[in-house]
């Protein structure tokens, strides 16, 4: 692979100076890294990378993983109340997928030299965040559909470009996750369509859900470009491929015709097609609300964190038992008696 070759050259140059960590060596590594990124090559776990690149990725991947885990809660809220067995199966499968995505993303983060335990601890102590969208409550069954259509739709718009992210393990995780996410999104759309075409009460339920989830979904793309401090560096490193506002615009343009075919309206009086720009103009986002939710003052921040911490704390004795059992029974495995503990 070209990346490996470039890094090999850098290593040879660095070691050629007699000390890989001196200034000359680091420069050689950095040059190779920059060249690999410029050439759209993938950075792999054993490759040299700038410390800031590593820590940005750890933060971003971890927060992505946390979002999958916290994101289970608003939807799981409706598993026991799903109105048909088919819908119940779809929802259960979706929530299960989210746990799987979380596991997958924690693994990707671990390739950068951290651990899942450490990351979960940062989540539980509030030192790392999760997507602000999951701090909104699911008040009716239609919210499950709105989350699928809008929230998963926004996530996909954000995540598809990440399939080409410069860090290999993250890019590969996104390829797999995006496949399942698009499936969830179609299911959410189909759920809303069934409601929209159902009884007047069902239609009203669908409209109400879209009214409540539209603006928070637009906020998922993050602050406007001029208030997004990490964006420039992330784009230079090809972690990010498009700006927040670009992706948000793309999402609005996708959603408008979908809302029409759903027979539902979007709650924005300023939303209209702009012939000149070739895009939809839309109203101003309530950034005060966005920052407030991000700071922990959204409708469900407290509830989500309390449930997550409780699940973790109440499960401690189970994890301890599993560890104690593994310690007791690891002797057999080390001496090759692999069958001894296998049921």
């Amino acid at each position, binding site marked *: 692979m070209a990346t490996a070759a470039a890094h090999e050259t850098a290593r040879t140059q660095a070691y050629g100076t007699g000390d890989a960590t001196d200034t000359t060596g680091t420069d050689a590594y950095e040059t190779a890294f920059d060249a690999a990124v410029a050439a759209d090559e993938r950075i792999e776990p054993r490759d040299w990378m700038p410390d800031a690149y590593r820590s940005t990725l750890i933060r971003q991947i971890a927060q992505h993983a946390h979002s999958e885990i916290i994101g289970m809660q608003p939807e799981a809220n409706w598993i026991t109340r799903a109105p*048909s067995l088919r819908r119940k199966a779809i929802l259960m499968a979706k929530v299960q997928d989210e746990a799987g995505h979380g596991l997958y993303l924690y693994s990707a983060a671990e390739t950068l030299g951290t651990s899942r335990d450490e990351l979960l601890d940062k989540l539980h102590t509030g030192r790392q965040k999760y997507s602000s969208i999951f701090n909104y409550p699911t008040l009716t069954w239609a919210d499950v559909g709105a989350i699928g259509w809008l929230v998963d739709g926004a996530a996909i718009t954000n995540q598809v470009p990440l399939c080409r992210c410069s860090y290999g393990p993250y890019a590969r995780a996104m390829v797999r996750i995006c496949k399942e996410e698009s499936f969830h999104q179609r299911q959410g759309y189909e759920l809303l369509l*069934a409601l929209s075409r159902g009884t007047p009460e069902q239609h009203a339920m669908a409209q109400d859900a879209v009214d409540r989830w539209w603006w928070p979904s637009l906020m998922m793309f993050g602050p406007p470009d001029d208030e997004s401090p990490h964006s420039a560096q992330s784009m230079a490193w090809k972690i990010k491929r498009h700006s927040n506002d670009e992706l948000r615009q793309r999402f609005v343009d996708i959603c408008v015709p979908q809302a029409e075919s759903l027979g539902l309206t979007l709650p924005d009086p300023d939303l209209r097609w702009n012939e000149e720009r070739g895009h939809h103009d839309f109203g101003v986002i309530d950034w005060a609300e966005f920052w407030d939710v991000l700071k922990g003052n959204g409708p469900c921040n407290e509830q989500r964190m309390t449930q997550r911490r409780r699940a973790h704390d109440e499960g401690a004795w189970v994890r301890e*038992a599993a560890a104690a059992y593994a310690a007791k029974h690891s002797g057999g495995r080390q001496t090759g008696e692999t069958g001894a503990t296998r049921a």
Partner: protein
Amino acid sequence: MTAALALGDDALVLSHRLGEWAGHAPVLEEEVALANIALDLLGQARVLLSMAGDEDELAFLREERAFRNLQLVEQPNGDFAHTIARQLYFSTYQHLLYAELAAGHGPFAPLAGKAVKETAYHRDHAEQWTLRLGDGTEAAHERMQRACAALWRFTGEMFRPVEGLDVDGERMESAWLASVGEVLGRATLTVPEGPRSGAWTAGAGRQGLHTEPFGRMLAEMQHLHRSHPGASW
């Protein structure tokens, strides 16, 4: 068909209980595993209830007294040990049952052929956790022992005859006792001593006589469907 309803209700109700774990499991891998088992069971329930009528009508519009599930599967999740004890008892039974049905030529043979593979996995999952909780820490051992004892009295009902179900209950019961006893032994747990088939509990769920938490479970499960009569979802 009474048997389709009985087996379908078992799967439906246990699936629902396992669904309550979503977002609450002790470790992420268990979020995946418990949801996976719940989904398998829900799949079985849908096939079985469809053999007996309309799956949604049967699931959402029957009153508590018309449900035919075992009392074991309607028991609240409790702590993780209770959930695992319930899984151990039920999946061992279900695996034995489906293995027997799969070998026959009755109406359940096609479903059983698929379900036997799923229940083998469920059984392995429950056994592995029984070992870890029983033979892990002292605290976990105590919890697991308590859970096994608390649910023991619901286990006799599994082997009572069900109309339309052509299986040898006695033979299955002795196989079940041997298997569960062996797993508990390996997990350093003792087999509970209480009765398994008291006059009240034996066969009660199959006759529509349930325990108190079940009505509340159904209220939650059926509420939305019942609020919109005739709607499709």
